[in-house]
């Protein structure tokens, strides 16, 4: 589906309304609202355990919400049957926190994987597309290497290439710069911005790399205790005098945050 094909006035790539989800007795998402306008990068920031990763896993449909609605590219996916979700998933490119490259495959095979599995392109077409994408992320000549033979930054680039190779409409990034040194972080951020512009993508990014990440964000959403405490453009958010956000920026978590249990998966 092309972006024009929608023909809807709604220009949000992703829209979330009143999303709720709890694990056992622990409420992780407590009525989250989020809008990702088409062609923009929205960055979700917040202290560890605030539910950022869980929110992202709802957006990429790994988890189903208890309540609320998720609208992706104009399609309400909240009540969709699992089998039907796959057509929606093909609009996604997802960059996982640790890259999640398949370590039994070379970089080339990893990047070619979505095309081999999900398209009917010929070998030559796939090869051309993969090499083109690898060049776009600055990994030319690395296609025969295995993920274990590359540095963390290169793995991130390869993973980004895999997320982009099937020309997704929506890019989702889970802490793309975790574990990288500041110079690499900057390089990856630039790469994300550049590819987002080149491919005309909408992007949702989860990061705790503040304030570096604001440089490439169009909008910022500050998440705290399972809800959106603050949303707006980078300027608006930076100008706000919300106490929690100030404390978060200053690198001091409040006592409540420390007591908040870490939520994994």
């Amino acid at each position, binding site marked *: 589906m092309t972006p024009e094909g929608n023909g809807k006035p709604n220009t949000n790539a992703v829209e979330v309304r009143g999303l709720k989800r709890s694990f056992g007795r622990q409420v992780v998402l407590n009525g989250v609202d989020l809008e990702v306008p088409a062609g923009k990068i929205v960055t979700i920031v917040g202290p560890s355990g605030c539910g950022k990763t869980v929110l992202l896993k709802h957006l990429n449909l790994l988890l189903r919400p208890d309540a609320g609605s998720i609208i992706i590219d104009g399609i309400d996916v909240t009540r969709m049957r699992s089998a039907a979700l796959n057509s929606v998933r093909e609009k996604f490119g997802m960059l996982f926190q*640790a890259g*999640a490259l398949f*370590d039994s495959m070379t970089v080339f095979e990893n990047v070619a994987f979505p095309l081999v599995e999900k398209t009917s392109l010929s070998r030559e077409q796939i090869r051309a597309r993969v090499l083109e994408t690898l060049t776009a992320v600055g990994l030319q000549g690395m296609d025969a290497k295995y993920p274990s033979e590359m540095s963390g930054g290169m793995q991130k680039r390869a993973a980004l290439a895999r997320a982009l190779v099937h020309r997704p409409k929506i890019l989702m990034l889970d802490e793309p710069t975790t574990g990288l040194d500041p110079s690499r972080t900057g390089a990856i951020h630039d790469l994300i911005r550049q590819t987002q512009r080149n491919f005309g993508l909408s992007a949702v990014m989860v990061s705790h790399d503040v304030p570096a990440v604001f440089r490439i964000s169009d909008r910022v959403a500050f998440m705290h205790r399972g809800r959106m405490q603050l949303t707006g453009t980078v300027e608006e958010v930076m100008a706000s005098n919300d106490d929690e956000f100030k404390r978060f920026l200053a690198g001091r978590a409040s006592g409540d945050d420390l007591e908040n249990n870490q939520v994994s998966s």
Partner: protein
Amino acid sequence: MIERLGASILDGIVALGNFVLFLFNSIAFALIPPYKPRLAVRQIRIIGADSLFLIVLIGAFTGMVLGLQGFTTLRRFGSEGALGTVVALVIVRELGPVLAALMIAARAGSAMAAELGAMQSTEQVDALTVMAINPVQYLVSPRMVAGIISFPLLTTIFDVIGIWGGWVVGCGLMGAPSGDYFNGIAAQLESHDIAIGLYKALCFGVIVMWVSCYKGYHAQRMATGVSRATTEAVVLSSVLILMADYIVGALLL
């Protein structure tokens, strides 16, 4: 207190249901397209071909032990001539399938649980899902198919090597009559016995793949989670193999 007990019983039933559903899914997804024959071939190499040396080694020594002990026991009854029958029936009906399955569980099952556990903890499984690929169909079903193919083949190889090992020791070293050894096998080893051995191998193949993949797939997302999954996969596989051995043996006799 009672509430907690009830909750834990409920959790147990849910977990068991999940476990059984996992088996159904892994078999069902092997039967519906897209088929992944190449993935299955790769798994057959890992589960089957790469275990070959181990199976030959274990098979030979099992047969040799049976030849030695069988001979010394049968000699007390003056029935050394029955050595071949004893060795062949014991190996084909019992020890072949069971020992081969235990060895593959320890070798390939543990590796599989560790691999899937690591894939789970590094979000590779999630990556498959997000790429609209069913991870059970992609990761588990080929292994199930490979197990179903590999186990009977490995078991038969184990059987043949074991019978030969029993002959080497029983007849070569201990002096049991060689003609009686093979005549006894020819007379007593029936297609029914071989079929029982193959049924068992098939069941054990499903069990080992099922348990190993389940444990790996549902490993906790941390290093200790992977190691625990590996241990549990081997222990649970072994227990289920022996339980199934009794059940299949009693049903088919």
